């Protein structure tokens, strides 16, 4: 491992969890989040010299990730989409814990939102970015981000209402039966 790689990984290590969660939530049903992570890290590494301050590394990484997704959206094929969706479904259903199940349904619901809404909600709610940072990453205005967050939450509620029964059932203690 050379100096550049070690320096890059040193910056990446503290934000790994946030980045992993973002990728997992963001590409649920579209592609393997590991691919997105690897591609983003590789691009970030190649453009590492362009990074002005270490504090901006997180937003630098997420900006690259968002651009990659935007490019992939144009190149995406329907057949591969179906395959990835099935793969993600099988993977998450094997997670047996209640928390994993709830998060699985959340990801499923997020996948039904529009690209911009999904991205804004994930960045704000899961990754913990401020509205200003999200606006910079998405290259849009703060009011737009606010609108996306508001509409995204409303849509999520609607979607999750239909899957609330399994969520409630999973949260209830065993033996109470299902509604």
């Amino acid at each position, binding site marked *: 491992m050379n100096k550049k790689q070690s320096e890059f990984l040193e910056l990446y290590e503290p934000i790994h969890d946030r980045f992993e969660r973002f990728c997992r939530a963001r590409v649920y049903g579209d592609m393997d989040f590991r691919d997105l992570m690897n591609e983003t890290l*590789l691009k970030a590494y190649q453009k590492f010299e362009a990074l002005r301050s270490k504090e901006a590394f997180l937003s630098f990484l997420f900006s690259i990730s968002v651009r990659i997704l935007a490019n992939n959206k144009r190149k995406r094929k329907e057949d591969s989409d179906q395959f990835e969706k099935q793969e993600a479904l099988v993977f998450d259903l094997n997670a047996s814990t209640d928390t994993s199940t709830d998060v699985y349904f*959340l990801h499923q619901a997020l996948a039904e939102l529009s690209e911009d809404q999904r991205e804004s909600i994930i960045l704000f*709610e899961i990754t913990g970015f401020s509205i200003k940072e999200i606006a910079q990453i998405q290259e849009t205005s703060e009011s737009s981000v606010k609108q996306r967050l508001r509409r995204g939450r409303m849509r999520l*509620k609607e979607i999750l*209402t239909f899957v609330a029964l399994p969520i409630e059932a999973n949260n209830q203690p065993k033996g109470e039966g299902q509604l």
Partner: protein
Amino acid sequence: MSVSDENLAQLFSQARNQQPVANLDETKKAFITATVVAAGGVLATKGLLQLLTTKKWIIMLSTITIITTGTLIVGLSANPKETAENIPSVDNQNSIITVDEPQESFEAVADASSYLEPAIPSQLTEIDHNAVFEPLASEPDFLNENDFIAAEDSLDAEPDAEPLSHAPRLAESTSKIKPYAQRYDITENTTKTDFEKMKREAEKDGIEFTYKAKYTDDKLTKLRLELKIDQEEEDGYAQHVMSNIDIKGSFEYTIAWDNGANGQASNFYCGDTDEFNEEDNDAQGELEESINEFEDMLAELQLEDLIENFDSLSEQMWNNFDDIDWDDIAAEFESFEAEFEEAFEEFKKEDVQKLMEELKESSEEMVKTIQEELRQMQIEIEKEKIEIEKQKEQDEKDKKENKDKENKEDKKDDQEDEEGTRI
């Protein structure tokens, strides 16, 4: 069952605190592997790009080389000087060379004996090179060995090959039928004064005449002649003859030329006198034959009979002319004229009257219809006038009535006001 904001926040909180599926070590390994592969990939791409760039240069350079080489080859092959260098030098210099010089300054050395043999007496074909090129006191400058010039076509000529098309060959030339402007027979007894005379006449007619004669016991033993017409022909060639003759025994040689419309020499001919005479004899024979053929054709035409027929026809024509009765023709002409006048008068009387009557009838009808229409128009206009007057009267009446009503109402109001004040 609806999902509240709290439930949603709880779900987000769970997602936020969820343990990552892909741990850091796994991600690090994948990243390092990807960087290595990417580095190789980038290098490969750069290498490929370099190769492509090099290939492009190779293609460009090779194309330029091919074009340049091709141009050089074509250019060299088009330059006759380069080719002429490979031609062997003259073997038979004792020959008459009829040369047509191209427009471009082109010099070549060749064996021109093949097409000149008919012009040289057989006893002169033996060459004594040493004798010819002995240094003489008055050796002219043009008699250098390299000055022998042949046409381009003769460069590859075989000994039995066809002669040059531009060469004025005696054997095939048909122009010998017409008389030459100048003709000189050179024998072993021809003196220098004769040659000087020839030179003067030739130069007068625009021929560059250069000669060199060597005498032994007042007999001509060696002769070098060069005749050249500077004026180029239509095809860009000029005539140029060089002869280098070593004389042994009897010798008869002739030079002659034709003059063009401008009085300058257009063609010249050199060769054995016998051949000139043969040509002239042949031409004379041909001319006599053609005259005989023409006479035979005239005889076949039977002109006397034709003339007789023509005379009889003319006599008949005059006889018929005399038989014509001119009085009858004049009477017929007068009768035709009278008939024509009568027909014209009849036409005037009958047809014109009919036409006039028809015109009168039609005009009367037209006038009647127009008058009726005018009357109807007048009636309508009068009716409209009456209606307008009636409307005016009614309007005036209405106005008067309104005024009267208003006056009455005003009066009533005044009376009421007066009564009110009184009360």
